[in-house]
């Protein structure tokens, strides 16, 4: 116990920040031009949030399941596991999330709750988090002078995927969706620890934003907000 207490967080980091960020460049290069399909998936989800149809919840869950499975296979297993002995374990957890989402997509009772049944306000915390994950989060790397080839995109990068998923789930029924929140929130915490170990404090932003969006949703007045959309 005394031994463990003497370790610093950075002592557990077995790779350099440069090597970590290169994973994104390599994964992006591997997938190209698959990013176009991911962009289509993101637009579809955005559309489902703003103009939900009777089967939107089902399709959203199935789409998210596919995205989580892809992050597990492409980024975590194929690339991150090359430098992090724990990454294959993370990949299994991401696959578990994919299975949960798949079950939601196939379940006749659950699928409508993944998304809100009514159009989501652009000021809803979940909607803001979703848009942040798609459009703002990828820019952080560029601000840190990382090459654009390494942008962290929804569907490839775990942080962006976790945030986008949380955003969508927060627009639906929290009472029904809470089991689906566990893995994305846990991942945000793991990612924050990784960035702290690398000495890159800005990397805790996804965790802070995820918690802020969750709290804001819990304390939101649904009636007033819903009226605001009309």
């Amino acid at each position, binding site marked *: 116990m005394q031994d463990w207490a003497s370790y610093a967080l950075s002592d557990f*980091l077995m790779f350099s920040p440069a090597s970590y960020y*290169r994973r994104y460049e390599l994964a992006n290069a591997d997938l190209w031009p698959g990013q176009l399909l991911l962009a289509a998936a993101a637009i579809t989800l955005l559309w489902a949030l703003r103009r939900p149809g009777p089967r939107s919840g089902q399709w959203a869950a199935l789409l998210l399941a596919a995205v989580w499975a892809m992050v597990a296979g492409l980024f975590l297993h194929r690339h991150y596991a*090359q*430098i*992090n002995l724990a990454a294959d374990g993370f990949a299994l957890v991401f696959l578990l999330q994919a299975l949960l989402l798949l079950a939601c997509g196939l379940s006749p009772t659950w699928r409508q709750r993944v998304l809100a049944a009514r159009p989501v306000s652009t000021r809803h915390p979940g909607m803001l988090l979703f848009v942040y994950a798609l459009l703002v989060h990828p820019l952080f790397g560029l601000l840190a002078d990382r090459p654009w080839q390494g942008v962290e995109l929804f569907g490839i990068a775990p942080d962006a995927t976790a945030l986008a998923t949380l955003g969508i789930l927060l627009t639906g029924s929290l009472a029904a969706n809470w089991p689906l929140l566990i893995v994305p929130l846990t991942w945000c915490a793991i990612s924050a620890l990784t960035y702290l170990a690398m000495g890159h404090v800005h990397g805790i932003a996804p965790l802070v934003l995820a918690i802020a969006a969750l709290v804001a949703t819990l304390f939101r007045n649904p009636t007033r907000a819903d009226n605001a959309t009309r």
Partner: protein
Amino acid sequence: MNRRQFISLAGLGLTPLPQLLRAAVSEDRLMRPIPSTGERIPAIGMGTWVTFNIGNDPVARAQLRDVLRAFFAHGGGMIDSSPMYGSAEAVLGQLLPQFGGETPGLFTATKVWTSGDGPSDIENSRRLWRVDGFDLLQVHNLLAWERHIETLFEMKERGELRYVGITTSHGRRHRDMLRVMRDWPLDFVQATYNVLDREVEREMLPLAAERGIAFIANRPYRRGSLINFVQRHPLPAWAADIDCPHWPAFLLKFIVSHPAVTCAIPATSQVEHMHENMSAMVGRMPDADTRERMAAHVAAL
């Protein structure tokens, strides 16, 4: 080789490797004997923690090939790795054969995976490194050392291994290390030693000298934080008296000039840093008084 010739090495990156090796290796670089056999190895080796864990990244691999080229060009010897370093062993196994056997003095050192099946882990490491056998195998961080150390001595008995050692880092488990050093005929011990982390000077280094055990100093730069810290300050003028043109040479000379230290293993992924590290093997070395002055100077920064 004098300092000017040494510094000129930085410009030799494009010279064919065998020619470079013959031309550049300093005849008067600091070599240290392994007490158990008398074999002499270069006092500066190379660690691979973090720096060689780059996976299948072709750009990073090309960069590390240049680092290794500089290492051998300067007459480097020991390369230390571990199965716990992610892809480091596989990366070494991919890069070392590219030198076509032109790795004079290469001294392969790795460790036994702490929680696993010793013999199969060692065989896995050997396949990853693509070598016939290791010069040195060490029990990593002393975990499950009782089981692993018997395996290693059996391998040595059968001629499958040349040296046996144990390791720790960050100043942990020194009591246990000292006990194993007293009870077993070890060839090597490895622990953290640098200008600020000097606990090993009290018991471990004297015991290593007394028992004839070679000492490998890890974390010479505290994983980079020490060098980053001192480089914010000017190098003292008197560093020139011990042929230290920069802080890396200052920090490494402090370590390898200790009479009981056999080898220091700084890690780097930068060719320029490798040149700096290896420069600590040449020129004048500090005596005991100067070493105290060096430690006091850094402690006061």
